[in-house]
């Protein structure tokens, strides 16, 4: 299994256990996850998030089960160099969370990043949220990502590939059904925020949108690593569909980033 939604490093708003590389590796062992796409969590909140990427690349270079997701701030001068550095370091994707960066979600900076990531064949990852909005710190007022912005990203470049984490059923449906089939085929959703029984949102989405668009993601260690596995175990999935969600869809995104691919 590949967890496309994992973090390393401390969280500014509360104490979170298990944020070190060793602890993340132990969580992967505990839950049977073979590898994880990891973001440098503190960097998401820094003025220059790219300053966390160097540490992340060093960790990933030493840990074969981790893949780097480098954070890019397209509002900073020469941000393109950070993108180039991410590609050179073998990042599996780059991310930008406009709410945390203080950027307009579909403004000129974000659309420039969309186009640049597409040109470099790097998937662009973004989170709708990191925490339930009802429990956030009083100073944590960054807006959540909106579905209309993601639709704009998809339309901004016909080659861009997008991974969205922490989206719920309503968000996913609004983007999927608000896009052409060709656009919708360039976006993947992690299942970290899609509920199972009794409302069965995940079963509904898999039936209506299909397993090809979904990825195994947890949000660990901000959220329990056990959650996506429990969610899938409550479905009656064929082995092929389960393999697509837990491994193959993410692996196909990774292969595009391999030196030979």
């Amino acid at each position, binding site marked *: 299994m590949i967890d496309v939604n994992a973090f390393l490093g401390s969280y500014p708003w509360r*104490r979170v256990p298990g944020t070190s590389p060793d602890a993340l590796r132990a969580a992967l062992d505990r839950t049977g996850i073979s590898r994880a796409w990891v973001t440098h969590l503190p960097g998401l909140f820094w003025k220059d998030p790219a300053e966390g990427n160097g540490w992340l690349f060093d960790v990933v270079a030493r840990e074969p089960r981790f893949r780097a997701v480098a954070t890019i701030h397209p509002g900073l001068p020469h941000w393109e160099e950070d993108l180039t550095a991410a590609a050179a370091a073998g990042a599996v994707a780059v991310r930008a969370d406009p709410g945390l960066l203080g950027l307009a979600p579909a403004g000129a900076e974000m659309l420039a990043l969309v186009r640049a990531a597409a040109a470099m064949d790097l998937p662009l990852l973004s989170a709708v949220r990191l925490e339930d909005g009802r429990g956030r710190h009083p100073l944590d007022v960054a807006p959540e990502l909106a579905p209309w912005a993601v639709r704009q990203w998809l339309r901004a470049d016909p080659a861009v590939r997008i991974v969205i984490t922490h989206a719920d059923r309503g968000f996913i449906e609004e983007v999927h059904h608000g896009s052409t089939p060709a656009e919708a085929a360039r976006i993947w959703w992690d299942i970290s925020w899609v509920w199972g*029984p009794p409302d069965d949102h995940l079963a509904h989405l898999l039936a209506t949108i299909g397993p090809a668009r979904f990825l195994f993601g947890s949000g660990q260690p*901000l*959220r*329990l690593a*056990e959650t996506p596995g*429990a969610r899938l175990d409550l479905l009656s999935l064929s082995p092929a569909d389960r393999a697509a969600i837990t491994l193959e869809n993410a692996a196909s995104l990774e292969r595009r980033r391999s030196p030979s691919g």
Partner: protein
Amino acid sequence: MLIDVHAHFFHDRSGRADWRERNRSRLDAGARIGIRCHVASILGSWGHTSPTYFPSPADLTEANAALRGLVAEHGPRIRGYVAVNPNHTGHAVAELEAGVAGGMIGLKLAASRRADDPLLDPLCEAARRLRLPVLHHIWQFRRREWPGQEASDGVELCRLAARHPAVSFILAHIGGGGDWLHTLRAVRHAPNVLLDLSGSGVDGGMLEGALRAVGAERLLWGADVTLCTGWAKLRYLERLLPPADFALVSGGNAVRIFPPGAFA
């Protein structure tokens, strides 16, 4: 014995065409998880003919009767809380007594009236007399009023619990939204308040914090409306806790606070 202390079902007046499918989905998922008993409530008409958190007496009577019907249909797989609206005190007490006579095992208070309001005292006194625990809907740290409910937080529930020390109070869904860190502080010195772990929230550190705050003896496993997150927390607890403590959280504490024989 795995007991879900915070479950819900729907009925034909819930305003949902898929109410049977949702009930079936809960039971099927429960069977897969290994839930021995869903201790459930129905909050009136779920907003169809009166607001979910301000249900009318008539809707509550219908809902509680529907739940008794589900208990009769499914036997020991389902047990029930009597849901009431404390603003209608006479109706609430009568509904509670009728429910217990019909096999209900707990009292459900949602968000029709603040938890520390004196209007809740007659109901808690009835719960003591009938040996029922009280499950109270909680907004974890209510910093302001929220639409659609007169929500209470842990501090307010603890005030009520202090007035009724012989009653066990279940503070609902620490994973159900709001700041659970506030709740964990609030309940530290309230020995008759137990925490139910249900809710969609699976925040890293939440379960460790709950254990530090109140110990395994005051934790109750539950799922509420997302069984997937409930199962994730259960899996994590199985690794985190010694077997004896896991047995308490997964069902032993529930057996202790509900009426004798409730899960026989």
